[in-house]
């Protein structure tokens, strides 16, 4: 027993088979500086090479889907913040878009454009956090500070917008929580300048850096076919050379009216995954500038009485307004019975929600399709045959966010 405890505290395990005496069994995680969350990869090492790996997840499982079933459609929104907590607003948007589609609600143009805007701001944050942390794992700390400085500036804007840095809950079913503040546009433009500068700085540090190239080129390659079979979407799939982006393939929120490119890699290695993200940040900057230019005036919330609270003057001024308010607060939003799957292109890939309504105020079933779930399923296979240090480089590049992985 003591023997056992001792070996597991070192992260080592004994094989029961006499054949594997020459292999060393090591746990990467669940609590490892490079896992950025609690994940576990159990590896069989021959020297420094991983010959076989199996993964375990679930350390952050908290029953998101079960919780949704006992809350109303609106009350589920704060839970979606906690899925991908690096780009919380994209989860809000994905969820609300699915419920709105179910209700047949068209949200106002201003709300649509603002949703595009905050989604792209969140995409920038997600990508710079992912790449910054990935580079730290590779031993390049400076990039991290370049990126985290601008990330903090974007968070300042989001905090001014909704009062929270990370868990924003900024969308509502039918629109947004509140309109942007007057100097929002100028602040966003200023911060985008900073993002550009940080991108230039980081690219200057890594693009021709021999150490970086050696650590990332042809490391943990996944082929296009294998990636599709694993259900990869987003930057990890595009890094394999597959031009697939929901914003182009199944445009929503008028993404087809924005001019932007979809960066695509060639080999599907760590290098491609990092650079696809860096180029995507540039595209997001372009989309935000276009969105700011076209941002129409008007309401940010639909006037559909099924979902929108009436203005306070009506709530306190006439009986219809009061009843409307009461109905929504007490009886909630009740879509007709039905089943829907709806997806958006989140920072990590296709974020989908399957929602089943039974006519009551609570969703009957919510299933979230987290994009990094598929990436993590492939993680074991991807690191087999590579070095331990490469596994660390790979883990950062597929951007596992434990919040959405384990839900």
């Amino acid at each position, binding site marked *: 027993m003591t023997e056992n405890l001792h070996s*597991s505290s070192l992260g080592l*395990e004994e*094989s*029961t*088979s006499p*054949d*594997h005496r020459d*292999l060393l*069994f090591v746990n990467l995680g669940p609590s490892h500086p490079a896992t950025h969350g609690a994940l*576990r990869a*159990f590896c*069989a090492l021959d020297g420094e090479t991983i*010959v*076989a*790996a*199996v993964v*375990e*997840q*679930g350390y952050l*499982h908290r*029953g998101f*889907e*079960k*919780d949704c*079933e*006992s809350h109303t459609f609106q009350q589920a929104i704060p839970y979606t913040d906690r899925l991908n907590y690096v780009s919380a607003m994209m989860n809000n948007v994905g969820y609300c878009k699915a419920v709105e*589609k*179910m209700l047949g609600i068209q949200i106002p143009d201003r709300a649509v454009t603002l949703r595009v805007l905050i989604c792209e701001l969140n995409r920038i944050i997600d990508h710079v956090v992912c790449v910054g942390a990935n580079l730290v794992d590779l031993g390049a700390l400076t990039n991290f500070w370049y990126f985290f400085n601008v990330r903090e500036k974007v968070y300042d804007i989001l905090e001014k917008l909704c009062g929270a840095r990370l868990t924003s809950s900024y969308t509502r079913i039918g629109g947004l929580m509140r309109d942007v503040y007057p100097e929002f546009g100028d602040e966003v433009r200023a911060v985008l300048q900073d993002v550009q500068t940080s991108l230039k700085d980081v690219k200057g540090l890594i693009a021709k850096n021999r150490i970086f190239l050696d650590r990332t080129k042809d490391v943990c390659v996944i082929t296009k076919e*294998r990636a*599709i*079979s*694993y*259900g990869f979407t987003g930057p990890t799939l595009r890094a394999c050379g597959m031009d*697939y982006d929901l914003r182009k*393939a199944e445009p929503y929120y008028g993404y087809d009216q924005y001019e932007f490119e979809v960066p695509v890699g060639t080999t599907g290695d760590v290098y491609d995954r990092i650079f696809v993200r860096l180029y995507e940040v540039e595209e997001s900057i372009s989309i935000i500038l276009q969105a700011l230019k076209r941002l129409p005036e008007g309401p940010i919330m639909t006037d559909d009485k099924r979902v929108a609270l009436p203005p306070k003057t009506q709530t306190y001024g006439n009986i219809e307004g009061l009843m409307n308010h009461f109905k929504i607060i007490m009886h909630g939003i009740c879509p007709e*019975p*039905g*089943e*829907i*799957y709806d997806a958006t292109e989140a920072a990590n890939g*296709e974020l*989908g929600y*399957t929602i*089943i309504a*039974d*006519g*009551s105020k609570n969703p*009957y*079933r919510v*299933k979230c*399709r987290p994009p990094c*779930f*598929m990436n*993590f*399923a*492939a993680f*074991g*296979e991807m690191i*087999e045959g590579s070095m331990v240090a490469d596994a660390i480089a790979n883990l950062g590049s597929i951007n596992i966010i434990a919040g959405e992985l*384990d839900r």
Partner: protein
Amino acid sequence: MEATEIVEQLNHSLPGTVRNVLDRFGQAELEIDPVRTVEVLRFLQQTPGLEFNMLVDLVSLDYSTFPGWTGPRFGLLYLLKSLTQGHRLQVKTYLSAENPQSPSVTSLWANANHLEREAFDQMGIRFTGHPNLKRLLNHHEFVGHPLRKDYPITRRQALSANQSLMDEMEARLKERGIS
């Protein structure tokens, strides 16, 4: 490709498998014979012109408290996407309450392994032919299946022992030809 054409092809090549066709907010949903799941999904994946090469998600369902529901208790919803053709399709099977089991599609898509483990863990649906049907999100000592409607949301369980993962590792080493 339109859903009607897909159904026609299925009716022609695998008659009797499609039981019902529904429109789910713009996406077609086919209800199929649960016994022939693998056959139908393989056909959808491998037929030129259909080419549903991605299993987007697998959703397990429990209809036991759905108002007015008279059908079988459990359901599985396969969400398919073709990256070459650009179309989507939903395929649903219904499973009985007594012994919810369904053939595994791990031979068709690589991510089916984890998705089916999740469905087993959360809903207690057994996948026959799955190479490693263990819990995925919950602890291995967990009792019950939390997304079933009869599992109370307030029930708590104290779980402590680590999982060694050596069983999975032995299987993986064998699979990779290392011994």
